[in-house]
């Protein structure tokens, strides 16, 4: 299951990262080196083993449905790279969801 150059591009796209054309080969090499180590997992029989997502077998705690928050917009937007009229700004999005 070695990672090829086109896989690097696809992964980078999903992760919203850019990889320079000339670096792709090197990145693929390092990722493959890591995946080789991870591959050792395949040698172990795990049929019937329940996947473990959390260290402790606990259940979700619930919060009361009461408003606890107040408007802090100005304070929060002080650290925003681009905000105007209370809105965060990004380059124009063409397609709409």
């Amino acid at each position, binding site marked *: 299951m070695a990672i090829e150059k086109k896989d690097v591009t696809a992964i980078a796209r999903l992760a919203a990262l850019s990889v320079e054309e000339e670096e792709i080969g090197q*990145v693929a090499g390092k990722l493959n080196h*890591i995946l080789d180590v991870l591959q050792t997992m395949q040698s172990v029989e795990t049929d019937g083993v329940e996947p*473990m997502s959390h260290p402790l077998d606990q259940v979700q705690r619930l919060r009361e449905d009461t408003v606890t928050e107040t408007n802090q917009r100005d304070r929060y937007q002080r650290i925003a790279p681009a905000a105007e009229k209370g809105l*965060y700004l990004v380059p124009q999005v063409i397609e709409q969801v």
Partner: protein
Amino acid sequence: MHNLSLKTLSERLQRRELTSVELTQHFLDRIARFDGELNSYVTVTPELALDMAKEADERLDRGEGHRLTGIPVAHKDIFCTRDVKTSCGSKMLDQFLSPYDATVVEKLNALGMPILGKTNMDEFAMGSSTESSYYGQTLNPWDKKAVPGGSSGGSAAAVAAGLAPVATGSDTGGSIRQPAAFCGISGIKPTYGAVSRYGMIAYASSFDQGGPMTRSAEDAAWMLEAMAGLDERDSTSVSLARTDYARDLAQPVKELKIGVPEEYFSEGLDNEVAETVQAAIQVLADQGAEVVPVHLPNKDLAVSSYYVLAPAEASSNLSRFDGVRYGHRCEAPKDLNDLYTRSRSEGFGEEVKRRIMVGTYVLSEGYYDAYYRKAQKLRRLVRDDFVKAFEQCDLIVGPVAPSVAFDIGEKTDDPVSMYLADLYTIPVNLAGLPAMSVPAGFAQGRPVGLHIIGPYFEEHKILQLAHQYQQVTDWHHSVATDYR
């Protein structure tokens, strides 16, 4: 003054023989004197520290102080501190003034512990050497050619060099214990859920756990008491029956059964480290602890499992850094995609990007079952090993790392060799167990740590063993020549 125990400092503060301002100023002076070279802090906050110290003195004057009131602390830069830069060691957050305090910070603030500053770390806690920080390498106070370990390398170095009496750290795959071992201090990673993760910037949420980095087990017990407890704001936080972690410190170890996993002394472990750890175990045996062999057969799988699961969680946790609401944003993005990819590619360092890529890959269609799900199953096997082992013993002991602190630059070109060096600490995080590193001597002139692993929520037992060990040894009193 910088090498005194919390107990001594506390007594002197309470008796008003010492003021918090004097104590805080002393550490600030030492930081000014030594940290230019050591680079254990990303941010030093003298004004904040002295303001808080003044307030602490007022409390102490009124006789209203807690036993930690007035004792300054350094926070790993992964903990959000309100209106103070919280960088997580990343260019991404170089300008990030956190709008809020982490629960851990809030708790220690409430006790009146002045904040000296924020300590250096591997970027987003991804690393074992503090070499991936945007703010440069932190040096090991014992040997400036060596790394301090990581990711909480700044906190470890600061405590070891007497630039803070105590510091906070976080441990996802060994990030408290390994730097504690490398710098010759004590550090405990509590049971997952014991210390709130609220405001601790997430690397791998199902592994991350905050904890104290201190000069001794007793100091650690004091700090953990102040840091632990249920936090309604963290769904994975646990309601603890007791948090008086110092309760059993004075109990002798005679009653304790100590398990030594054979697998922790197999190939790959440095001989001198092995001998040092064995000598420490002999000390415990001499104190009356019963030493029994135990087995952790799936130990070798832990590293693979971890390096699938942690990057997977990280790839998602770090998606919020998109240059929109805070953090680094690239200049003049030409479109939305450009904003995302350029902001992230500029803001993140190599190792972070690598782990995001690995994590994205193992979660992607067609690979999820082979990697992610498989790793989740192995995680259970690793945990079950511990559960079985603890049927035969009270605590498990062994090495923290396969070697002493390695040289700066030694492993930077080979991420895999860095990953593999986490083989003793990672299984503990997979299981979510509490574990500690305490100084146990030296090898090749660099500190060696003794790893003490306990069953869920039995931190008090780990601390008991560590403290009793520290009653008959003085490795924890050793200070590197330059910083005495």
